[in-house]
């Protein structure tokens, strides 16, 4: 009799263990995407680049305006109607509109653009740096990060997938001299939390930005 009761006990334990396992295994793992909307920033999702092109054919540069939140025709290259350019491989190099910078697509035009890389999260960037910082730390464009701390993505060595650098925000001076901050989230369609396919369609850009319209350096977006 005793033997039977211990077996019963074992079976009970077994059932409990099975129930625990079942509870663990029942849910499906979701890859959670970060919340981009903060009430003041503009979120752009899946802005298509020169889709269908390859490294061999090259990618056609396109231009984007913060004011209209849309693409600007390349004929208006030498004007202040655009703020950032998307150029080179996978349109992934984000450039400024600056009339005096030879590397800028706005060279020779009226643009006053500049960009600096800040190692802080988008929410934590609350003020644009000084003009001196723009002068000394400014770059012409940001894209792949070879380890210099400026680019917005790197390639994972094993999966060959472009992964955005976390905690890196870009502060810009727009074409007409206002201050703005920009976070580049993804170059893959749907901006998934994790890209799991080598052939995931790109370039489709997801990013958010905030332009301080009053001309001040205040870039605070979270209350």
């Amino acid at each position, binding site marked *: 009799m005793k033997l039977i009761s211990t077996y019963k006990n074992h079976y009970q334990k077994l059932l409990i263990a099975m129930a625990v396992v079942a509870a663990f*295994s*029942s*849910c499906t793992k979701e890859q959670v995407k970060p919340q981009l909307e903060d009430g003041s920033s503009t979120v752009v999702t899946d802005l298509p680049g020169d889709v269908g092109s390859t490294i061999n054919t090259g990618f056609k540069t396109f231009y984007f305006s913060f004011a209209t939140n849309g693409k600007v025709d390349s004929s208006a290259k030498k004007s202040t109607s655009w703020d950032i350019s998307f150029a080179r491989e996978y349109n992934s190099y984000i450039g400024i509109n600056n009339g005096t910078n030879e590397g800028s697509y706005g060279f020779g035009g009226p643009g006053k653009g500049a960009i600096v890389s800040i190692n802080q999260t988008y929410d*934590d960037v609350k003020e644009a740096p000084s003009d001196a910082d723009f002068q000394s730390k400014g770059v012409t464009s940001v894209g792949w990060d*070879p380890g210099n701390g400026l680019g917005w993505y790197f390639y*994972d*060595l094993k999966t060959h997938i472009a992964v955005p650098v976390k905690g890196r925000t870009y502060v810009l001076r727009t074409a007409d001299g206002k201050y703005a901050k920009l976070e580049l989230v993804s170059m893959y369609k749907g901006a998934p939390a994790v890209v*799991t396919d080598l052939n995931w*369609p790109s370039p489709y850009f997801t990013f958010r930005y905030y332009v301080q319209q009053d001309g001040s350096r205040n870039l605070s977006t979270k209350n």
Partner: protein
Amino acid sequence: MFKIYLLLYLSCLCLVTSAQSLYKISGQVRNEQGDPVNAASILIKENLRGTQTDTMGRFVIDKLKPGNYTLIISALGYEKHFMQVAIEGASVGNIHIRLKTSAQNLKEVSVLGKQESHDNLIDLTRTPMPSTVITRKQIEMMGSRRLDEVLKEQTGLAIVNDIGSGARAVGLQLQGFDSGYTMIMIDGQPMTGRNSGNFDLSRITVANIERIEIIKGASSCLFGSEALAGVVNIVTRQNISQSQGLASLRYGSFNTFDATLEGETPFAKGKGSGYISGNYYRTDGFNANPYLSEGKTAPPYDSYTIQGRGRYTLSPMNALNVTGRYAVRNSVNQTAYSTTPSRDVLVEKDLNASAILNTNFSTGLRLKTQYYLTRYATDQNITNLADDQVIPTNNFVQYLHRGELQASQTFWGSMVLTGGTGIQYETMNNNLYSGVKSQSTAFAYAQADWKLSDELGLTGGVRGEHHSRYGSSLNPSFGVKYQPIKALTLKAAIATGFKTPDFRQLYLNFTNLAGGGYTVLGTDVFAAELQKLKDAGQIATVFANATKVSTLKPERSVAYSAGFTLQITPAIKADVNGFYNDVRNFINTDQVATKNGGQQIFSYFNIDRAFLTGADVGLSFRVTKGFNISAGYQLLYAKDRGVIDSIKAGTGNYAQVYDTDTRQVRRSKVSDYFGLTNRSRHMANVKFTYEYEPKGITGTFRVNYRGKYGFQEANLSNQFLDPYDTYVSSFFLLNASVQKKLMNNHFSVQLTADNIMNYRDQLMPGQSGRTVMLGLNYRFFKQQ
């Protein structure tokens, strides 16, 4: 090198010696139903002389001195039987032995007597490193259809996607080693056809597999290059004693359809035998990616396999054996992310064929002379349907020819000496290499398995190999087994492994136009191709290590293994084994240059020194007759020593970690390093099996656990997996099956459910959701 082969060959010939027979013991082994038991092992306890029964269950052991002997009779699936025989001046004949069917355990069964293999004289379960055998019965009870499904439920084995090599790159991980380091064999000969080193086991049906043998640990000492991590050997149907046939149909989730038709028969009064088996399998595939609007992450496919064997006894000494397998797989996977779709088309053809002459001398010497051919052809292309642009992905034809002579002889009833020699020629025609590439290898190996006493056994082996490119290499191994008391067996082994660079690492010239535009160059073509890119003005920076790209050396490992088996009670057995693999010259890609747009150019280096160490534990518990519980667990640490050194030294990117909690970059610590990607620290499984023979009912319930494993880097590139990177979460998979036999065992119905809780994760593209299948089987055989 040639001298070694000559020596080996001569020593084989010398084994053919004659001896006077004294007395003999002969008889017949049958089962409870009265059918003869084929390939049962008969062992004389006193002098360890042994033999196996033939297809009629008959056996003879000769040259015995008068005395009292204990026969130990064992066979796969039967309980061990002991019998006392006394020889007093006359031979003893007509011994009748009845074996009782044993209640089996679904996990690893250690087998004393086993089916004789005509294709391979090496007993894989008697090599120094730990081995596992999965029997036909276990596969049938699980209701598995493809080889990957069977293997992923075994302790220490995992099926993983290699994301960086494309959506179709899936392979077997063994003790933390990537798929490229495990040799996949069919009847003792290597199978080819890998996608960047990944051997996709779903191309192999388990229909007509008699058993699967797995060696965990370096086995280059017997099987050469590629067996650095271990070996998976598929043993097809071996021994045919009566005419029978099988028709099997299964259908279930995702329109998965599996049909098998097979027949076997002896002919020419038992002198010949043959079987033929055909299998058709199709599946709609499965999608684990919520972003896909069309298409699958586990691609749909259909596959046809035809497999057969013919055996004919030419003379009492000689038998000719012919085996063949041909499989075709077609797969079309049209994928879209709410975009214009792209179509990924794969056509794969796989041939394996062997002609074997088995010669068994009356002295006990067994010889095998074999020619083996395998051909693997794959065409995989991705077409972007927006502009019909075709991106060639994986297109090649690979041939391997091998001639091999194997010999085995038992000395003094206690030492089994097995040796072999052969040559191998391999060609590869890949559109990503310039022209057809070839390599050849000549090899000789020998293994001695010596039972010094009832308590102590030694195993030693060595393989010498001469490679057309890498010259000679010698791989020894040594194992010891000690059984101080009946309930306890202690085991320890050391073996070396090596792997010569594959064609890809030498000749690849690949730019992934669809996936980022990175370029990978094999070391042989590196200098010329880099110069071409330089001349075209595409190169931004060439790193200092580019000058170091040169001839690759073979990868090498030393594997240590030690453990014990403890029979705690007659019903409970524990197996504990620790392993340590020290790998040198580990070939890995490293960036050598950057193109103007930042795309990487990679080549291959012998850069890494890695270690893969851990332990595996197996427990089996026979609760009552027919009800068994078994459990397995593997602990694994797989790390690159180069990374540890770089973190310590604070080299470049290795020095920093982005801490997502503090949102700050901080100095990295060695403890931040999790290990190589795709490896779980903890893996476990529990299997419940139930068999109620009188009613012909069997059932299984299996739980598989995989601890979290690294997927890729996130946040900041520091070239190693830190705690803040992307991980695949730990998970449980639940599988069950139940089977009922009807109509005097002719007919059976089986219901299987894999992944019962429908667990899915976007980071595991190859893992299907809940799969429920209903199977019907009909066996044709003569009722006794």
